[in-house]
């Protein structure tokens, strides 16, 4: 494989009438869309669209079938044993809120009524989506929100985790991969530790799913959530995987059509299974796009994706490290890099000495380089690390060495202009 991306041509945004010179380094925010996905959504919407799960006519039945089949495709994609464990929603944010309010809240409320103390455990790197719902619940039930520290390498401190978990811990929610540091947590090991304390686990997989084979069965978490748009699919579509044994005790978190088996004016019986969490009409176009994105990645194959991404991530990290004014948020230790040379983050957050990150991003933008600047929805993490904001560059399938070179040249120009 050469250093050029063999897949860039699959993304119409780079075509000559659109943005041929775009250097897109913000895939952690959202991935650009391959033509396969856009076409699938277009074709579905033009030629197959109807309301799923409702109509008795063939067109609607076909759409129902598509959605139900999508559960199997997604289950297979994340290593779940059955499509029955897959529920569709609008994204990671909704998935976490759903679990917080339909699974965790009743447990907290029960303990609260019995006068038992409770605590919830998260990690220091969490995206606001995996922090605010827990803050809300902690406040509502006077529970303690405990935060596991991170190591110098930017992953969860497992010794600290063991200290924080106890008999009153009602849930452990953590990200599989941080959207700021790009490091993967040892999810299997973390869930094992939680299990020893009988603590249910929720894994925020938003940043993890596009970077390698996810296997929720091996991780053995209770819940796993992610968004289609961070996987080259459309926005507004997400997935909650849950162990089906939990579904019965969970109450729907939003109420509406399609989730009830019987309704009268005083009470309702809810349907069993994952559809209980899918009130209203399904976002079928989004689900179709997600399935196409999964198939697109499948066609390329994980080994090819990983080989390209690892090479590129290594080039990105080495090139940035050569800049004398480059200040990464986390400095990977030489020891770890020697031990795990392939485990180089494809998301890097950094500052340039004496240049504010917003100026860096603006100047890069003037060279058509898209990066993120700010706290990336992880303000407490930035506070923990003692900075207010950083620049974040993150890689996708369409990137290649030339994008890294443009970034480095752009940073150099920004630094000279602002400090020279």
């Amino acid at each position: 494989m050469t250093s050029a991306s063999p897949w860039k041509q699959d993304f119409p945004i780079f075509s000559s009438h659109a943005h041929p010179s775009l250097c897109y380094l913000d895939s952690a925010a959202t991935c650009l869309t391959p033509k396969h996905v856009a076409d699938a959504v277009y074709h579905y919407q033009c030629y197959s669209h109807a309301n799923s799960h409702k109509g008795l006519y063939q067109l609607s039945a076909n759409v129902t079938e598509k959605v139900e089949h999508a559960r199997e495709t997604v289950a297979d994609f994340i290593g779940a044993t059955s499509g029955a464990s897959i529920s569709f929603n609008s994204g990671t944010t909704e998935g976490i809120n759903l679990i917080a309010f339909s699974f965790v809240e009743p447990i907290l409320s029960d303990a609260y009524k019995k006068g038992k103390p409770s605590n919830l455990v998260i990690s220091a790197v969490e995206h606001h989506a995996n922090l605010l719902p827990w803050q809300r619940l902690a406040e509502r039930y006077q529970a303690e929100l405990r935060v596991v520290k991170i190591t110098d390498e930017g992953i969860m401190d497992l010794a600290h985790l063991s200290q924080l978990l106890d008999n009153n811990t009602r849930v452990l929610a953590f990200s599989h991969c941080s959207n700021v540091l790009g490091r993967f947590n040892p999810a299997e090991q973390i869930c094992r530790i939680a299990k020893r304390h009988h603590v249910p686990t929720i894994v925020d997989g938003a940043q993890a799913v596009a970077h390698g084979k996810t296997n929720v069965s091996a991780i053995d978490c209770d819940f796993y959530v992610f968004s289609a748009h961070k996987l080259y699919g459309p926005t507004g579509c997400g997935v909650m995987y849950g162990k089906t044994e939990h579904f019965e005790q969970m109450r729907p978190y939003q109420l509406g059509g399609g989730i009830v088996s019987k309704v009268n004016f005083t009470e309702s019986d809810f349907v069993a299974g994952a559809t209980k969490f899918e009130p209203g009409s399904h976002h079928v176009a989004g689900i179709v796009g997600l399935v196409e994105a999964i198939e697109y990645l499948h066609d390329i194959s994980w080994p090819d994706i990983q080989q390209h991404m690892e090479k590129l991530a290594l080039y990105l990290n080495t090139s940035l490290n050569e800049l004398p004014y480059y200040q990464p948020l986390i400095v990977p230790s030489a020891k770890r890099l020697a031990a795990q040379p392939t485990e180089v983050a494809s998301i890097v957050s950094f500052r340039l000495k004496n240049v504010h990150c917003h100026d860096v991003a603006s100047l890069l933008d003037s060279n058509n380089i898209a990066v993120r600047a700010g706290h990336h929805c992880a303000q407490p993490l930035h506070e923990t690390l003692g900075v207010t904001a950083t620049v974040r560059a993150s890689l996708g399938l369409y990137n290649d060495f030339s994008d890294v070179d443009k970034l480095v040249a752009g940073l150099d120009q920004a630094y000279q202009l602002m400090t020279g």
Partner: protein
Amino acid sequence: MSEASQQKPDQPAVHDDHALYQQALLAHHKSPVGYNLAIVATHSAQGVNATCGDDIKIAVEIEQNYLQALAFYGDSCAICRASASMLCQHLKGLSVAEVLALSQKVKASLSENVSLIGVAAEQFEPLRSVEKFPVRKQCALLPWTTLEQALNATS
């Protein structure tokens, strides 16, 4: 990022008329007026742009309704810093009422593209470059809204 606003790669940002970082603005960024100046402040306020992390404090010394001294502190981007610097440079000696009136005008010129006229047009000309960069207007505005807060706060 539209292609229309895209710059040719061989043209560094600084030479472009439409560039955000004009020389005059950069000059304020590099040698800011009033930055970390020790003054006997009678009024001050803290301003924060939550989305980008600009965090500045504006302090003024008011004597008999006139601004005798101005200073600013904190960590911010170059646009915010240059805006604060121009504010410190040009408001000294004006009355509180004059400053509030001018502040209204500068804010309107930044947020609604209303042209400044007269001396102010010349003094605050470098800030006009943010016109074409809507996401950065908040950076240029922050010192002004913070100044107004300081003036409205009782000492």
